[in-house]
């Protein structure tokens, strides 16, 4: 068995390029056809519909790149919840994007164990080389959003960085330009 491509090689990932446009366009339902089937199968894992909420939100984010208010309404209808309840859950968890982000969402771990191994310099290198300039702000070309993240759970491989779904270990500032060169 070989690992999926996003874990070993290139950076195949959801298409984030249309984020800004998507924010202004009419909402297109996520759960149709195959995606609906996927949700139905997930519902079979739990005795209560509500338990499929986190997985359903993951599907919305996978398909659209972020979780919009309309996406929350769609999920709420499907799982017989109120949109307000769903929003309450979305806002609790840090991994759901509540607004469009860059095509490449870069998370750098800076918690203590990485901090003492120089994670701050890795963050600075990413900010400089992506032109994002500031944490949480998408670069002018819409490609990169860099954030600091709390403990990615790979402390022995300092500094771990997540770019979309790809998990990269042992990043130092010198490696940053070559990592970014792969991202087109």
């Amino acid at each position, binding site marked *: *068995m070989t*690992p*999926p491509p*996003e*874990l070993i090689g290139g950076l195949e990932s959801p298409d984030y390029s249309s984020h800004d446009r998507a924010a202004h366009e009419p909402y297109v339902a996520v759960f149709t056809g195959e995606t609906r089937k996927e949700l139905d199968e997930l519902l079979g*894992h*739990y*005795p*209560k519909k*509500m*338990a*499929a*909420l*986190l*997985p359903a*939100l*993951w599907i919305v984010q996978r398909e659209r790149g972020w979780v919009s208010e309309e996406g929350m309404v769609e999920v709420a209808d499907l*799982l017989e*919840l109120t949109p307000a309840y769903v929003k*309450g*859950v979305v806002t*609790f*968890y*840090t*991994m*759901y994007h509540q607004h469009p982000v860059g095509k490449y969402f870069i*998370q750098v771990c*800076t*918690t*203590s*164990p990485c*901090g*003492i*191994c120089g994670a701050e310099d890795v963050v600075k290198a990413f900010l400089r080389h992506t032109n994002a300039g500031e944490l949480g702000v998408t670069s002018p070309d819409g490609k990169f959003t860099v954030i600091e*993240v*709390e*403990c*990615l*759970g*790979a*402390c*022995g*491989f*300092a500094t771990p960085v*997540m770019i979309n*779904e*790809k*998990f990269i270990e042992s990043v130092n500032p010198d490696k940053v330009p070559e990592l970014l060169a792969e991202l087109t």
Partner: protein
Amino acid sequence: MGFPHLPHSRETTVLSKYFGDAEARTLDGWKKRGGYKALEKALGMQPADIVNVVKESGLRGRGGAGFPTGMKWSFMKPGDGKPHYLCCNADESEPGTFKDRELMRWTPHALVEGCAIGAYAIGAETAYIYIRGEFTEPLYWMEQAVKEAYAAGIIGKNAMGSGKRIDVHVHKGAGAYICGEETALMNSLEGRRGNPRIKPPFPAVSGVFGMPTTINNVETLIAAAPILLNGADWYKKMSLSNPKSTGTKLFSVCGNVQRPGTYEVVMGFPFKEFLYDLCGGPYHGRKFKAVIPGGASVPIQTMEEAEATLMDYEGFVAQGSMLGSGGVIVIDDAQPMVTVIARIARFFAHESCAQCTQCREGTAWTTKILERIRDGEGTMEDLDTLLDIAEQMTGKTICVLSDSCAVPVVSGIQKFRGEFEALIQGRRFHPVTAAVA
């Protein structure tokens, strides 16, 4: 260890034997290495007998609290007419801890097997593996392993032809440290905000979906398989110190050491040799200054304490700390302690679920004051304020996140007060600038 380095000769590799061995990730490869024999044996036993073997082995929870696993399993009353659930806590987020990540990415079938054994032992038909969302690689391998195990009939309606139903599902978290707290994990699994619940009722009475539930750490469940195969006595003998801490333990080592990684040693191993021999000691030209031995929420040890420690539940307590999750953070003399502790406090402030006032306010204020001292703008009074806040944060909240933030702050001020005072008095910390090997 096996990955990224070969195992050290003084390691005892039971759980980490196949780290770095890509073939062990597949069902065929896992079976070739003796996989699923323990489950087969378990399904031929009475659940109560499995619980007794685990009880007898002395296995204790590897997630942090060290609660005896067999006893936890025995709280699940068979024949109460309710569905039982097993939750595997794979929300490993404690700074410094990454052993479960290695277990899941290298030996995913070991966890499927452990979950199936655990579920059968507590009378559950469903086991959920709650994995934190950031663990994309472990998630991938666990999902593959579950799929393969279903296809081979190892789990499912008729697990290994035993007539028993055992379902195992992987559930992906979405970024919240607090979901590693067992009641928060259950809330999250149910599709709620990850706020911890007030106990009692304890999970064994009313857990996930309101039903009797047992929550075990990844390493605990995986350890159950070799115990069943080799017997409780075999496991008990793997201890260098006392009969209360048995078996092997994975320690994930990070920070300023030559060879960070996940090591497996028997309980009671001398910490001094562990740090200087197995982990390769400090970088060239530097010295160790402090160790946080069990993830960011346990007391900081001075080197004097650390070097006198025997690595087991009681050994760490005897030397002013706790074994916790086995996440060893090593800090060398180039690191200002105030910066390290302020960053830990910031972590907890970020991760507080904000349910309890003491925690929401306490973690935030602790962080602000520590960062003020770090930036050379603190006063001597600040130290008293920090200790006062820490006292208010301890033992007064629904879960222990608040206490976890207070612990490193208090131990840090007690053991490294000089560094705090130096910064306050305008004497900056001068790090050692020797070259890194």
